[in-house]
């Protein structure tokens, strides 16, 4: 027991620093994935959008969103890396914060598994649950008049996704100690699905894909978007776990051995 309590806990500051760095790395890698798989699809969608705008009102001012040329298309492609990097840094810092606050409640002696658990929870809650209700859309899909409602609905489903994961964990821990593993897994699944189902039913359905929009382009764009976010969270989990491992190496070996 004395060895166990001798195990030092890293300060919030040192964890946060590593989370931000891991987020920067993961964000840039996600940017590379997004650039390689998504940019050609965004170009194709913008071409469709502009063709539709000119057909609807030849010579008239366009809808203004893309055509102001405040930032050129080349600039936006570079901005993609800035966007994913900044978003990655924000998520990395939040992951480190969640790790600091929740580490004691994660019932595993392995720091790596604790990090993977939190990253997986975020991937399911922030990415997969929202994707099932409101999948990503390329330009030319979506009615500008409903952007506020769609934004509120999207934030709601992200919150519901995180609540669903939390409900799954609570449900898994509900059976009395000694309950079989399969029962905990079933309870977790049930708790998770109940919350997701309520969210999916209560939130408004959005279907603003124009009839003429190519189905294959929509599909490949959505895959690119999903891949970008999966890349971000898997790389964030891996990078943060790796940096944490390096931080922990200074801990006396016997303290680590007792914990594992």
């Amino acid at each position, binding site marked *: 027991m004395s060895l166990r309590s001798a195990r030092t806990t890293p300060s919030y500051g040192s964890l946060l620093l590593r989370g931000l760095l891991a987020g920067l790395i993961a964000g840039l890698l996600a940017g590379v994935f997004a650039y390689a798989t998504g940019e050609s699809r965004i170009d194709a969608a913008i071409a469709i959008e502009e063709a539709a705008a000119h057909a609807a009102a030849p010579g008239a001012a366009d809808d203004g969103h893309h055509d102001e040329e405040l930032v050129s298309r080349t600039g936006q492609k570079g901005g993609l890396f800035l966007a*994913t990097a900044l978003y990655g840094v924000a998520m990395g810092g939040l992951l480190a914060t969640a790790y600091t606050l929740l580490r004691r409640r994660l019932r595993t002696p392995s720091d790596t598994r604790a990090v993977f658990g939190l990253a997986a929870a975020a991937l399911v809650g922030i990415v997969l649950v929202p994707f099932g209700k409101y999948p990503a859309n390329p330009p030319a899909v979506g009615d500008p008049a409903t952007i506020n409602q769609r934004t509120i609905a999207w934030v709601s489903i992200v919150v519901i996704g995180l609540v669903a994961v939390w409900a799954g964990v609570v449900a898994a821990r509900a059976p009395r100690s000694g309950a079989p593993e399969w029962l905990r897994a079933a309870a977790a699944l049930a708790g998770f699905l109940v919350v997701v189902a309520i969210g999916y039913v209560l939130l408004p359905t959005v279907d603003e894909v124009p009839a003429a929009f190519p189905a294959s382009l929509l599909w490949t764009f959505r895959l690119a978007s999903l891949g970008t976010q999966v890349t971000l969270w898997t790389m964030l989990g891996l990078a943060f776990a790796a940096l944490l491992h390096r931080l922990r190496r200074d801990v006396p070996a016997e303290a680590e051995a007792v914990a594992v």
Partner: protein
Amino acid sequence: MSNLSNTPSVRPLDQPAVSARVLWTAAGVGSLLLLLAYLVAFDQGAVSQGGMYLHELLHDGRHLLGVPCH
């Protein structure tokens, strides 16, 4: 796999409780990080004070990160 379950033999680590100071710091830092995420995902100049420039620059990232854009 047994150490993934919460059988009585595997207890949470004896980690010290999170102090109130860390809790408040985490709340402050967490708010700033959410503001950063907001800046990327939604801001249209209100926070960045750069007009629509940052919004347009981050445009492709918003679409590929799955955020409703336009």
